[in-house]
């Protein structure tokens, strides 16, 4: 049994801590704020396998299969529902591109298909069919409750002995050669240190700071926090916008009904580089902008009341694919999820735990594709489509 430190109490860190405990490891988990406070609790809840490259499609197909069994495994209700993702095309060229994506996804066993607007209207009763030509529809995509999911993982992890600490920032790493030997952390007024056998950097937007503590260049894994904002309406009855609905050509705007309270979450690619790692200030341009897209997608939304606008980070890498793998002999990273951490968590956590514990994993995760050293080598992947 090894002592493994997981840094970052978001969904990736918590889920990996759980998976490591399942493999019999002795895990200590550090979160500088409260669990989920970084990106997880600010996400748009969506889960999809409709990506445009093989690596992400394969990973997400596996992840969705894990999601399907997660409630049972964690013995908690997590609000996972396969309500689908519906992408909408506004031009013939886009319909063609959708067609190609559908073929690619089908090849990996993802049941996406092209649908006409009559069918789309049945799926989304308040949809404005007029501007759109066709939809790419995968009924297996879906959503889950980030709060309940994170706490379900956390509860199980703790039951299995994980020492999960919130409000406990990591303030230093001790390194000898290519090995991290100890983690220094703050807490109730003092500094403590603990000897470790391995460390996982699951700090997402904060990951470069952790890498720097390990003596690595912060831009070795270049992760830049972008404010991704959301606006949510007050609770509504379900069944009006159950899937995530997105016309990508409208600045990646999307709407999705919260599986919990039925409030409609509205997002768009109106992004701003965060001024700092605590810059969660929502912006006025987003508020006006996103709602103009949203009411064009679903006009009855004009009568809904907005109750909340908030920002979270898309911790973006240059190719918007995460960095997953080994950085030093016993320092690992799973960060830079560029908006996909929540949906990928079940698969990535399992793969990462197996890598740390056994040196290899049976999860269909393309290690080379997500290699954290690819940026240094200048090998960028084709940008992953980034709708949450």
């Amino acid at each position, binding site marked *: 049994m090894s002592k493994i430190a997981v840094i970052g109490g978001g969904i990736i860190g918590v889920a990996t801590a759980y998976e490591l405990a399942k493999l019999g490891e002795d895990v200590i988990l550090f979160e500088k704020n409260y669990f989920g406070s970084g990106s997880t*609790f600010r996400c748009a809840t969506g889960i999809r396998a409709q990506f445009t490259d093989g690596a992400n499609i394969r990973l997400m197909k596996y992840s969705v299969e894990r999601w399907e069994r997660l409630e049972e495994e964690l013995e908690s209700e997590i609000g996972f529902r396969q309500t689908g993702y519906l992408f909408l095309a506004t031009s013939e060229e886009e319909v063609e591109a959708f067609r190609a994506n559908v073929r690619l996804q089908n090849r990996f066993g993802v049941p996406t298909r092209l649908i006409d607007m009559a069918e789309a209207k049945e799926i989304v009763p308040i949809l404005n069919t007029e501007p759109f030509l066709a939809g790419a529809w995968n009924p297996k995509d879906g959503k889950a409750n980030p709060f309940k999911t994170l706490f379900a993982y956390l509860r199980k992890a703790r039951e299995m002995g994980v020492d999960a600490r919130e409000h406990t920032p990591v303030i230093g790493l001790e390194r000898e050669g290519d090995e991290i030997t100890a983690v220094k952390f703050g807490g109730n007024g003092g500094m403590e240190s603990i000897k470790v056998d391995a460390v996982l950097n699951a700090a997402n937007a904060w990951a470069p700071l952790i890498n720097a503590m390990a003596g690595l260049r912060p831009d070795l894994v270049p992760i830049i926090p972008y404010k991704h904002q959301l606006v949510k309406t*007050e609770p509504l009855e379900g069944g009006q916008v159950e899937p995530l609905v997105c016309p990508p050509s409208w600045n990646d705007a999307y709407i999705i009904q919260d599986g919990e309270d039925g409030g409609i979450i509205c997002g768009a690619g109106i992004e701003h580089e965060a001024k700092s790692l605590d810059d969660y200030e929502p912006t006025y341009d987003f508020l006006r902008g996103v709602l103009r897209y*949203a009411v064009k997608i679903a006009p009855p939304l*004009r009568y*809904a*009341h907005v*109750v909340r606008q908030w920002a979270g980070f898309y911790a973006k890498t240059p190719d918007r694919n995460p960095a997953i793998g080994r950085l030093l002999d016993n320092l690992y990273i799973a960060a830079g999820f560029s908006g996909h951490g929540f949906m990928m968590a079940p698969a990535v956590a399992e793969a990462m735990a197996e890598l740390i514990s056994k040196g290899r994993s049976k999860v269909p995760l393309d290690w080379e594709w997500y290699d954290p050293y690819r940026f240094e080598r200048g090998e960028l992947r084709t940008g992953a489509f980034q709708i949450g």
Partner: protein
Amino acid sequence: MAGKRIVCRCNDVTAEEIEALIDSGVTDIEEIKRLLRVGMGPCQGRTCLPIVIGILARKTGKRLEEIPLPKARVPVRPVRVEAITGGADE
């Protein structure tokens, strides 16, 4: 009707439910808020959050000063979408 001490009207959360969650070890106001959805309904926490903070202080022995007030967000009151986009019918 069975007696209920309602703290959050929007999501029908009772004082008993909040106390039970705190007893189960969840003592961060942000976590309580999200797990029970108190303060996340259309009233935006106006009525309930001070009560939750009071219960939390009493159960954990903390002073009220020590419990941070969850952030208020835009819009500070519920607003029609069309009042933001402009173009509502007169």
